[in-house]
């Protein structure tokens, strides 16, 4: 099973879920505002955003538990308007897992199969296959009330996967687990998705979860989709400050647009001088001002007499120790806000005294221009 699927990863350019101009209003409040999105077949897709951004609303509309006020959703080319949740080719892993407490593990997993009226052997085989996929073999007779959080999550996964849906919807499936288990499940979920080749749509507010598991991510704020891209692009080339900020730390520097052409921008900044950067696809000029961003880990401490082509100099004002890394706050003359720098502790960044002068190297590639 595993070999077969790993050799033929099903990700294609075919659209599996087509979301067109979907709006969901509650009175005057718009939970989702004119969202359009195409999720590809076999893709691990994440809807990422803070609570209340409309990601769960969108997921529930794909599942059929909520209806768009306007716009349309199609799954596998088939319009979903008026099709109730129980007749959609989607299955869901609920945030609370929703394990049936009156049934044991096996009965939970077989729940949806009962309606298909398979013969007993086939049903048993599919249940066991699903339990094996989530490493729960042998726990079939366990009562639902006797399961740990991690096990409940696996049962919920098996119960949905056994239906062989075209799309598996996951509503914050890892948020109830402790950190260690969560990280382990991230890896397992990703592996499982690649093994079964089903389109996964994950809703999460945890940026690391989205970055670690997804093929593509849609970042949402206030009912709107801000950016859809691969994890790397979302992290390295966020379209605006909001996205950049939500996906981890980012230093923002005020900049002035000096020159703009099709592919690049030339910006004037106080601390970093004049820099040329790639122009982001969705860059919308708003007057002459822009923001330049750089991630704290893309600034490197220059030791002793080392020098770099691109560097800034300043003074350490704070130092925070985090085990394998140290977080430095560095004041740069001319910059209104000090820069955050994340440095690994291999070379003794944890011993840099507060108040010491410091030079930081950076790669101009790591500088991101954002519209103000």
């Amino acid at each position, binding site marked *: 099973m595993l070999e077969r699927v790993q050799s033929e990863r099903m990700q294609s350019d075919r659209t599996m879920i087509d979301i067109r101009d979907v709006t969901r209003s509650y009175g005057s409040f718009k939970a989702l505002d004119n969202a359009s999105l195409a999720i590809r077949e076999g893709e691990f897709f994440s809807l990422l955003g803070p609570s209340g951004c409309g990601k769960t609303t969108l997921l529930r509309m794909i599942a059929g*538990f909520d209806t768009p006020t306007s716009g349309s959703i199609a799954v596998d080319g088939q319009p979903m308007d008026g099709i109730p949740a*129980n007749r959609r080719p989607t299955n869901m892993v*609920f945030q609370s897992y*929703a394990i049936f407490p009156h*049934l044991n593990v096996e009965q939970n997993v077989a*729940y949806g199969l009962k*309606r298909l009226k398979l013969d007993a052997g086939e049903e048993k085989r599919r249940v066991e296959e699903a339990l094996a996929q989530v490493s729960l073999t042998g726990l079939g007779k366990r009562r639902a009330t006797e399961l740990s959080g991690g096990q409940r999550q696996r049962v919920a996964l098996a119960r*949905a996967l056994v*239906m062989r849906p075209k799309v598996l919807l996951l509503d914050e499936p890892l948020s109830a687990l402790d950190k260690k288990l969560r990280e382990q499940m991230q890896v397992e979920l990703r592996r499982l998705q690649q093994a079964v080749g089903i389109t996964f749509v994950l809703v999460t507010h945890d940026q690391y979860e989205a970055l670690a598991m997804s093929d593509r991510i849609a970042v949402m704020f206030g009912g709107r989709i801000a950016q859809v891209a691969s994890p790397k692009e979302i992290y390295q080339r966020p379209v605006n400050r909001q996205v950049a900020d939500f996906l981890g730390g980012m230093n923002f520097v005020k900049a002035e647009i000096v020159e703009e052409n099709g592919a690049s921008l030339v910006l004037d900044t106080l601390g970093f001088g004049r820099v040329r950067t790639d122009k982001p696809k969705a860059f919308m000029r708003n007057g002459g001002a822009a923001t330049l961003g750089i991630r704290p880990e893309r600034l490197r401490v220059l030791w002793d007499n080392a020098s770099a082509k691109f560097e800034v100099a300043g003074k350490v004002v704070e130092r925070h120790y985090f085990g394998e890394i140290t977080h430095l706050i560095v004041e740069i003359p001319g910059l209104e806000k000090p820069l955050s720098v994340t440095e690994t502790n291999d070379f003794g960044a944890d011993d840099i005294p507060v108040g010491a002068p410091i030079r930081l190297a950076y790669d101009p590639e790591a500088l991101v221009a954002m519209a103000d």
Partner: protein
Amino acid sequence: MTVAAEGSPPLRMAGARRNPLLQSEAVQGFALISPTFVYALILLVLPILVVIAHSFWTQNYLTIDHTFTLENYRIALTEPIYRDLLWRSLYISLTVSLLTVLLAYPIAYFISFHGGRHKSLWLFLITIPFWTSYLLRVMSWKVILGYNGVLNSGLMGLGIISEPSDALLYNSTAVIITLTHAWATFAILPIFVSLEKVDRTLVEAATDLGDGPLRSFLRVTLPLSVPGVISAALIVMIPTVGDYVTPKLVGGKDGVMIANAIQAQFGKASNWPLGAALSVTTMIIVSLMAGATVLVIRALQRLAR
């Protein structure tokens, strides 16, 4: 602290011995229930013991012969009149509990799943009949079911029947109708409570796995509300077996139940030992029937999976 303790060792010892006792949860619990417990002991347990004792004695005109005998139980169990009355009481109470649960379930379901913001208002409305006395409510059923009653006049007015039916009042059907109405609230509340506890996500999960509304109800909501159904059935069944007022008022001679016979033994017939034996027999049979009902509902629940 230590100095004071050393200075008064006996006091400290006494304190140590007394405090754990007063602070133990069990003792506190008993203290809390003791007024009710004493009350129940005097007014419930003692009378039952008196009744049980009487059931083994014999009535000798105005005095009671205290020699042990099982004669009363022989009469209670073999005499056709008592056997029939007991059967009828069990039949009526079983029918009433079944009907009450069947009628109460949809109401409880409606309030719990579709009551929205008005749940408390609905529950409040359901308690309104309790604002009048039970006797008045039974009497009003007489008005409805009587020969010249509301139901007969209504049916005649509609041309469904040509002359009043006397099959409505003074028989066991009248008792069943009246009791079903009277006990509805007691069945609605426990069912409502257990429906409230059903996690709505479970119903969504069932829908997601392909169940339509009816199937998800039968496979998830109903099995999970069984505890409420059981308590509703028992709450109705146990008191209705021994109901005395309702058969007396609307039952006529065909609606007489065992409680009326017991009352007669303690009253007019003045045979306390026989009345006591009938009471004890009824109590035992009701307990057995209640136990059997629980087992049957549980078995049905298991079958439904």
